[in-house]
């Protein structure tokens, strides 16, 4: 059921309950006030009769039993009034005459009178009436005075009131429901408009936004929030498209070289040496394509989060040292020394394969940016967590793996983009020396997958410094 229908129904039900309760209360109140007015009149007459009896006389026959007497009370025109005087055994003393009427009181009621005055509503000669009975003295005897009046007029008033409530109540309920329906419709109109607009927005019109309602209410703030969400989605989409375009460009570049190399080699009249050179060059292009494909695959896995990590409890210091060793030959070729240090017990739960990969990317990067004969520092240690970054909120200690070179360092304007995909300091130069432009992006992905983060800065004494901060929990 729609919100609008639900609200309208709820409002109608509430109104119905209100009308029913107040109607019943009003009817009960009416009944009791009618009765008390009747009782007052009966008491007056009863007292007058008792006084007359005390004086020793019985009223003339039927003088108190007149259809018009009620008019003297003024209040309930048309009510029939009547009276009886009974002995304690129930014999009718008054009115006396040829047709002796039946006593107005039953035997139990006669007994009740001895306890005092009482009133009752009952049918007298088939008409609804109210009677009052009390004891009085007459000629040294105790007699019972009964006065009564028919209540048909009061009953008619009640019936009319009940009728008004029964007809007016449902009308009020219907009006309330309809009003709620129209009001909620008006209140929700901007919501319908927003929904229709959202339905029309596709991934292709990235600039499409919700129109802002002129009001400053909850619906306007919903529009603001939704537009912010659309902004974020558009930024993510733009980033994704940029990445795909970059990846296409990066893949096509070595493919272009490979294809050109092979086409030239296929021309007639190539010497053995030329062909060998072409095959070697083509192998180089192929290697670069393989690296690029592997790196893209790693990033795709990291983005999906599927089976990216296979963590184990390992000694990270051993990992650091062995990674440094595996690059020793490559470093030595340019006279570079790798100074690896891993202090203390660095046993932690990490994925050894991914950690090796990240370390490899860091060291490879550092060697490529080192001057010939320089030093690359590789450090693994546990430090007190300096800040409480999102990645290691609960850890008081972090496992730091840091690689520093003594090259020119990152240009300041490049620092915020160090871990972005296909970002390079010098486009042409770096591509030529073998970087895919994805190495540090992969380092950042691996650090994030471990619940940590990657940080890049320049050492105060020069040289680029990149470190992974991983959560460290001893045992």
């Amino acid at each position, binding site marked *: 059921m729609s919100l609008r229908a639900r609200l309208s129904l709820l409002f109608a039900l509430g109104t119905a309950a209100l009308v029913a309760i107040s109607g019943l209360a009003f009817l009960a109140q009416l009944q009791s006030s009618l009765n008390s007015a009747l009782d007052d009149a009966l008491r007056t007459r009863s007292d007058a009769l008792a006084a007359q009896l005390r004086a020793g006389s019985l009223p003339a026959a039927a003088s108190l039993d007149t259809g018009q007497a009620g008019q003297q009370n003024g209040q309930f025109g048309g009510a029939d009034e009547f009276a009886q005087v009974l002995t304690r055994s129930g014999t009718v003393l008054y009115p006396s005459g040829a047709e002796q009427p039946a006593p107005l009181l039953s035997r139990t009621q006669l007994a009740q009178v001895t306890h005092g005055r009482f009133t009752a509503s009952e049918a007298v000669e088939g008409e609804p009436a109210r009677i009052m009975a009390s004891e009085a003295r007459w000629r040294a005897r105790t007699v019972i005075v009964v006065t009564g009046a028919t209540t048909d007029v009061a009953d008619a008033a009640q019936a009319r009131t009940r009728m008004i409530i029964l007809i007016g109540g449902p009308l009020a309920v219907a009006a309330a429901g309809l009003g709620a329906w129209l009001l909620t419709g008006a209140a929700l109109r901007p919501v319908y408009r927003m929904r229709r607009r959202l339905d029309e927005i596709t991934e292709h019109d990235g600039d499409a936004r919700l129109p802002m309602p002129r009001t400053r209410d909850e619906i306007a703030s919903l529009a603001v929030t939704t537009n912010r969400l659309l902004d974020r989605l558009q930024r993510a989409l733009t980033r994704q498209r940029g990445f795909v*375009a970059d990846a*296409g*460009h990066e893949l*096509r*570049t*070595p*493919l*272009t*070289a*490979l*294809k*050109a*190399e092979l*086409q*030239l080699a296929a*021309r007639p009249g190539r010497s053995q040496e030329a062909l060998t050179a072409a095959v070697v*060059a083509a192998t180089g*292009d192929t290697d670069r394509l393989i690296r690029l494909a592997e790196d893209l695959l790693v990033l795709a896995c990291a983005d999906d989060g599927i089976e990216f990590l296979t963590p184990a409890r390992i000694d990270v210091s051993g990992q650091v040292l062995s990674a440094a060793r595996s690059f020793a030959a490559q470093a030595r070729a340019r006279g570079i020394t790798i100074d690896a240090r891993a202090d203390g017990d660095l046993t932690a739960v990490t994925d050894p394969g991914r950690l090796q990969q990240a370390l490899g990317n860091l060291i490879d990067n550092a060697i490529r940016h080192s001057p010939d004969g320089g030093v690359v520092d590789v450090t693994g240690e546990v430090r007190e967590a300096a800040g409480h970054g999102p990645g290691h909120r609960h850890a008081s200690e972090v496992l730091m793996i840091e690689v520093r070179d003594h090259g020119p360092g990152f240009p300041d304007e490049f620092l915020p983009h160090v871990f972005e995909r296909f970002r390079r300091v*010098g*486009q*042409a130069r770096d*591509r*030529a020396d073998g970087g895919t432009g994805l190495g540090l992006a992969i380092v950042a992905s691996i650090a994030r997958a471990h619940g940590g983060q990657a940080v890049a800065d320049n050492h105060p004494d020069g040289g680029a410094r990149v470190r992974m901060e991983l959560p460290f929990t001893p045992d």
Partner: protein
Amino acid sequence: MKALVVEDEVRTAALLRRGLEEEGYAVDMAADGPEGVWRATEFGYDVVILDVMLPGFDGYEVCRRLRSSGCWIPVLILTARNEPAERVRGLDCGADDYLAKPFSFDELFARLRALIRRGAPVRPAVLQVGGLRLDPATRRAWRGESELHLTAKEFALLELFLRYPDQVLTRTRILEHAWDYAYDGGSNVVDQYVAYLRRKVDQPFHLVQLETVRGAGYRLRAAPEPRPG
């Protein structure tokens, strides 16, 4: 034939040079945008092969700068950016052809031959004659600084006149250019549309540039004259 290759990627540049040289071209290289513009304008080449992603400024900018400095050497854009939007952008910047990487040498050579055949006539991307300016790519036209709001037919007529300044265009020629073969409405529709065009191009500026040549047709003067009276 002499070719300039503007390409920053070392491997691709070397391979292009080898391939072109084997085909008989004399090849010069430039590794970034500014060097490309400088070489192309300073030395005579028969063709320029231009990469898009270049240090300095990109290939589109190289193209724009060449054309705006009056250098009409045929330019072939050779790039790994292969989206249709990129190709459109390249051609609208004044390039003559577009080839995507990875490319085939045979196709590259064929396209270069075709470009060189056409030579280097003045073929601006934006037409300009005596205060009138028209950009076919954005479909906008101006008289001086004020933009003209033309219908599609008026735009087609103005483009035709701007391509042949100071030449008499007969009604038949105009009809053939701006109306399709199936049109059968007589040639006074040309008079009607030329009148519309004058009302937007000449009259508001109190000039006479689009003039009637009695008994022959119409002519767009290279320089407008103030309207007599």
